[in-house]
């Protein structure tokens, strides 16, 4: 408060009509008795002119008394000369003190202005520094985003090259057998083999043809997903019973499970479960792919013809269907090789495979889970995985019980494919 008043007074100091609140006389008169007073901040008791007057009065009285004591008389000329002296001296004193006070005031004013300028300058520097810092942070964050994008692109490129190298191997391997057997038939050497051997050749031929078909289908499906050609027509969407769907799906895997000596347990939470809207053929592909992976990457006491990773212990796959909030969830759990933790986030991306899966089977396009994701998300659902390396994985597919009325599976997938392309 006191400071505020002081600032208020400082502001007025030097202006004409400024009342010095420290000066008793000026305060009581409420106007500056002299022009000089508008520059003064001194108390009345410290007023130079008032002191001059006081001292002049004392000196004049002293001179008059002294003259009376010495000459027993006070001459008129003495009185006149004393007052002339006082007035003349007073006039010059007044002038010089006025200059001193004004120059003091100007000096103070300049100092204040300088101080203020300094303060403002410092503030400006701080502000500018902060702005530069903010700009720097912005540039840095933009750079890091760009770097991330570039790295992602490089990884994708690398994955693509690796995929092409492997894909060419995957495609060539069955073809070289098919071509080999066909060439023997053409050249006639095939007939030189005994019948039982010929039968094995034919079986191998058929197996390799199936394998080739699988690989080609994977590649075609994946490229369709990334193009707008992928068609899921809404008129083919139907309401199905999840229980019947999964039972039928799992029964299709029975020969393979028996061959690999793997136990598959199916559990339905409660019957009947609410129906789900889907394109059955695509949903079969997606959930079937997950069951197939579970069988494939669960090394059992009896390895199949493509892998040698034989593991002790009983292989087990648990498939369950249950309702969670407003979704129907399919869970496919295995006690297989698992997915390395750092790779789990990427397994649904195109051309990505778990490194341990790649080691176990050199074939595999790295497209299966990408296709699963596209199909499920195209249905308005979600797919995710949990896994522990060496202990097993769980894959989840959730589909909404009440898809929004205007759900258009075709449009969703096309829209998503457009984003990817």
């Amino acid at each position: 408060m006191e400071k505020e008043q002081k600032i208020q007074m400082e502001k007025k100091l030097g202006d004409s009509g400024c009342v010095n609140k420290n000066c008793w006389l000026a305060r009581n008169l409420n106007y500056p008795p002299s022009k000089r007073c508008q520059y003064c901040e001194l108390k009345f008791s410290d007023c130079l002119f008032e002191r001059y007057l006081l001292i002049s009065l004392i000196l004049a009285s002293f001179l008059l008394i002294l003259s009376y004591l010495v000459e027993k008389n006070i001459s008129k000329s003495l009185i006149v000369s004393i007052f002339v002296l006082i007035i003349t001296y007073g006039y010059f004193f007044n002038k010089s003190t006025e200059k001193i006070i004004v120059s003091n005031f100007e000096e103070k004013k300049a100092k204040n202005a300088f101080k203020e300028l300094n303060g403002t300058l410092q503030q400006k520097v701080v502000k500018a520094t902060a702005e530069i810092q903010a700009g720097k942070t912005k540039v840095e964050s933009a750079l890091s985003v760009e770097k991330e994008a570039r790295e992602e692109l490089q990884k994708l490129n690398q994955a693509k090259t690796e995929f092409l190298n492997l894909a060419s191997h995957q495609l060539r391997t069955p073809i070289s057998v098919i071509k080999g057997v066909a060439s023997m038939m053409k050249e006639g050497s095939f007939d030189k083999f005994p019948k039982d051997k010929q039968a094995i050749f034919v079986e191998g031929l058929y197996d390799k043809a199936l394998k080739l078909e699988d690989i080609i289908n994977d590649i075609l499906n994946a490229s369709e997903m990334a193009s707008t050609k992928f068609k899921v027509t809404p008129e083919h969407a139907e309401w199905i019973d999840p229980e019947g769907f999964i039972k039928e799906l799992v029964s299709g895997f029975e020969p393979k499970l028996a061959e690999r000596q793997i136990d598959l347990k199916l559990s339905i939470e409660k019957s009947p479960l609410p129906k789900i809207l889907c394109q059955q053929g695509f949903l079969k592909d997606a959930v079937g792919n997950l069951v197939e992976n579970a069988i494939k990457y669960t090394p059992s006491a009896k390895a199949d013809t493509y892998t040698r990773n034989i593991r002790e212990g009983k292989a087990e796959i648990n498939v369950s269907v249950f309702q969670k909030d407003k979704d129907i969830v399919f869970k496919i759990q295995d006690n297989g090789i698992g997915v390395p933790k750092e790779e789990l986030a990427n397994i649904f991306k195109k051309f990505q495979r778990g490194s341990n899966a790649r080691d176990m089977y050199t074939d595999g396009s790295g497209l299966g889970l990408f296709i699963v994701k596209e199909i499920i998300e195209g249905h308005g659902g979600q797919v995710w995985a949990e896994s522990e390396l060496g202990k097993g994985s769980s894959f989840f597919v959730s589909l909404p019980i009440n898809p929004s009325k205007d759900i258009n599976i075709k449009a969703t997938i096309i829209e998503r494919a457009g984003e990817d392309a």
Partner: protein
Amino acid sequence: MLERLKNLRKVLFVEDDPAQIFMYQSVFELEGMCMMAASYHQEALRMAQTEEPELILLDLLLGNESGLDVLKDLKANQKTKDIPVIVFTNYEKKGLREECAKLGASDFILKIQTTPVDFAKTIRAGLGKRAGKK
């Protein structure tokens, strides 16, 4: 019979696909050669030492093992380093042929570029020449 088997030219095929082993084994037999097969790294090294084949045919993708490691080990072993190794695979990438040659492979043949009978005949002809040189 035993005498005839002794005279057969021995070839070791390092390959993990049973269908291919069966096919090449049958054709090599037809062409009068004896093909043994090893489907993983250690088996390949063991058989190369005990069976002393005249030639080794090596695939590069062996499940979770690499044929290049097998090649390195074969060439590092005193007993097997002189057995010629032909890389016989469908896997190809930039610089791979050069790498195989550097590691001591005699040749690099893509399975897809030949037929089993042609391949067996070429190998038999090659073995014949080598035997002649001896």
